[in-house]
């Protein structure tokens, strides 16, 4: 049945031809217009302004800002703190993206099946997503305090030594990664749950008739059917990871011990807001922008060639 209706659809499109396509173009523009106006004013224009800013030397209160060309970009190339922030961001991304996709997918699969207390588990795992990070970080810092934190206190009964990850240059980033995952796994889990709902049940019924195991069902049905969801999850996860700010900023203010958790966006914040060098901040922002854009286009291109 599915096959026959697709043929009908193709024939229909062909019949309407150029006029139909033209009508679709006009309709599409009308559907896109409201969003486009809002984005143009409140996103694209500020982006253009930021590019301009990055080519100037911004001085607090000055009427005219000096044009300095690419000087800010050059400064960044020679700034070891900028490189440190870049590599820390890569470190964060390299762990948070794979784990932040695999764990939520596993949870979504488990919670999409008929399992007792399903609603409770979904709500529990989603709870950190809806909580304010600034406040939950107060809680985490309290719990993880090596001297008076209840977690470290309880662990000490099991022979764990006093442990202060957030104050240790080697462990601060892993601790930030763990808390960032705690905060965000529910997010991708819900996206995957919505994606799983869209997979027709008949596909699984057919597979069960063939006695296909869980593993084979997953790789032959679930994974390919989740393609559109995966594209979304990976693209958004990478964009978000490269722009990580909240977990780092609230758990390890001032860049963490010896700048071990300073990422690109916390570095931007420090340069722009704390030290008033807004044009340098803008230029770092643009390098970040370029990296994320390239990664996104690569992902979309790969998933696109695989489609048809």
């Amino acid at each position, binding site marked *: 049945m599915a096959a026959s209706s697709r043929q009908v659809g193709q024939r229909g499109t062909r019949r309407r031809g150029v006029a139909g396509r033209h009508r679709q173009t006009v309709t599409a523009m009308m559907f896109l217009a409201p969003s486009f106006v809002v984005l143009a004013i409140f996103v694209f224009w500020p982006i253009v302004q930021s590019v301009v800013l990055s080519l100037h030397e911004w001085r607090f209160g000055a009427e005219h800002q000096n044009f300095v060309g690419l000087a800010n970009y050059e400064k960044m190339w020679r700034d070891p*703190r900028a490189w440190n922030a870049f590599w820390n961001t890569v470190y964060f991304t390299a762990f948070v993206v794979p784990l932040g996709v695999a764990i939520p997918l596993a949870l979504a699969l488990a919670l999409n099946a008929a399992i007792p207390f399903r609603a409770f588990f979904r709500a529990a795992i989603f709870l950190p997503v809806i909580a304010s990070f600034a406040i939950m970080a107060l809680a985490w810092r309290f719990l993880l305090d*090596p*001297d008076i934190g209840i977690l470290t206190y309880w662990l000490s009964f099991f022979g764990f030594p006093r442990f202060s990850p957030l104050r240790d240059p080697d462990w601060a980033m892993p601790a930030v990664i763990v808390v960032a995952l705690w905060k965000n796994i529910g997010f991708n889990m819900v996206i995957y749950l919505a994606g799983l709902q869209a997979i027709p049940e008949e596909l699984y019924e057919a597979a069960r008739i063939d006695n296909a195991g869980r593993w084979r069902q997953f790789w032959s049905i679930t994974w390919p059917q989740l393609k559109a969801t995966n594209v979304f999850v990976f693209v958004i996860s990478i964009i978000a990871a490269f722009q990580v700010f909240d977990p780092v900023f609230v758990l390890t203010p*001032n860049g963490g*011990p*010896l700048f071990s958790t300073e990422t690109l966006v916390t570095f931007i914040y420090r340069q722009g*807001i704390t030290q008033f060098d807004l044009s340098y901040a803008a230029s770092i922002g643009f390098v970040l922008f370029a990296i994320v854009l390239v990664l996104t286009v690569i992902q979309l291109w790969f998933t696109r060639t695989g489609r048809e």
Partner: protein
Amino acid sequence: MNAWIKAATGAALSAALTLPLATQAGELTFWNGFTGPDRPTIEAVTAEFSAANPDTPVAMDIVPWDSLMQKLLTALGSGSGPDVVGINFAFLPQFAKSGLIMDLTDHLTAENDLDPANWSEGLRSVLQVDGRYYATPINYATLLMYYNKDLFAEAGLDPDNPPATWDAWIEAIRATTISEGEAQYGLTLPDHQTIPNWPILLWGNGADIVVEGASGLSEPAAIEALELWSGLVVNEKISPVGLTGAEADKLFETGKAAMGITGPWMTNGFTAAGLNYDVTPIPVGPAGPVTLGDTIVLLVNKDTDDPEAAIKFLAHWNSKEAQLRLANETGFPPSRTDLSTSTELTNPWAAKFAAVVPQSRFNLAGQDKFSQINDDVFTPLIQTITLGRASVEDAANAASEQLGSLLQ
């Protein structure tokens, strides 16, 4: 469902269209960052002004200090800034050089109740940039050493006779430090997100971060002080490494630390926690008595519609009544030295903090790059040596070089 969406959209839109106008004519806008326990007093003193000056009531906006900087950056750029703003003195050089704030020099007179003679010399110097006054104080904080009397007694020290010199101090710190098993710390030395502690140790030894416009970090006195105190941290575990100010205060509050250097804001919390403690001046180092001073100051927007009312508002904060009220309700010393020994200063804590005002110094005063110097050079230096990542001399020399290029 659809009807509901329509109704809600309509409600949101009509709410958006009937937006309230923020500023009324004649209103004086005042932004500051007094979140936390001092807020009620700040609100009350502001309300007093509004009540006394019904023509220029004050519309106050309180947001956390770091958000306040972000608000100012955006608002001042587009001409929607407040008439008066309260910020930490350290930002003053940047604001003064920006040309966005008013030169107050000619308005600071005894007739206006803004007499510079009433401020300590240190305070006067941080209110000026290039010899001109750009700010007046709201409050003044000094630091004292808090010590836990019970832990002193347990360690065989006299709780009524706290250490007064570095030698006695170090002895007391060693006596109250327990590094085996259940840890206890003799002292807390926070290094970031804190009121500065480490600069006081430099000053005590006759050193400073910046000396006459150049780096002082590789001077022998600086290296000696850093070696002494980081040695105690690394080898004898007198303090945890990498503490924030809030974490240090919590260690003291829970009786895990015997001593800590902090300001008047902690007395209420420690008292409420039932802690048996007292405060004493920071023990005197080889270079003589010294403590840290800090102040929140008021600036006036150059574009204010009503400079006269703004000056009047500044004077209101500097008035005897307002300063005494602040001191008595918050425990901060008055910012006017003529009130330090006033009989109306009834808060005993405020009197103790007021007693050290004459020996208080401001960290990185007048440095428009104070944030780079503190966060990019000094804090990493302290972390490097307290973590034992490099020798004090190497780390100090490297930091000194970095600081030198910042100061050029």
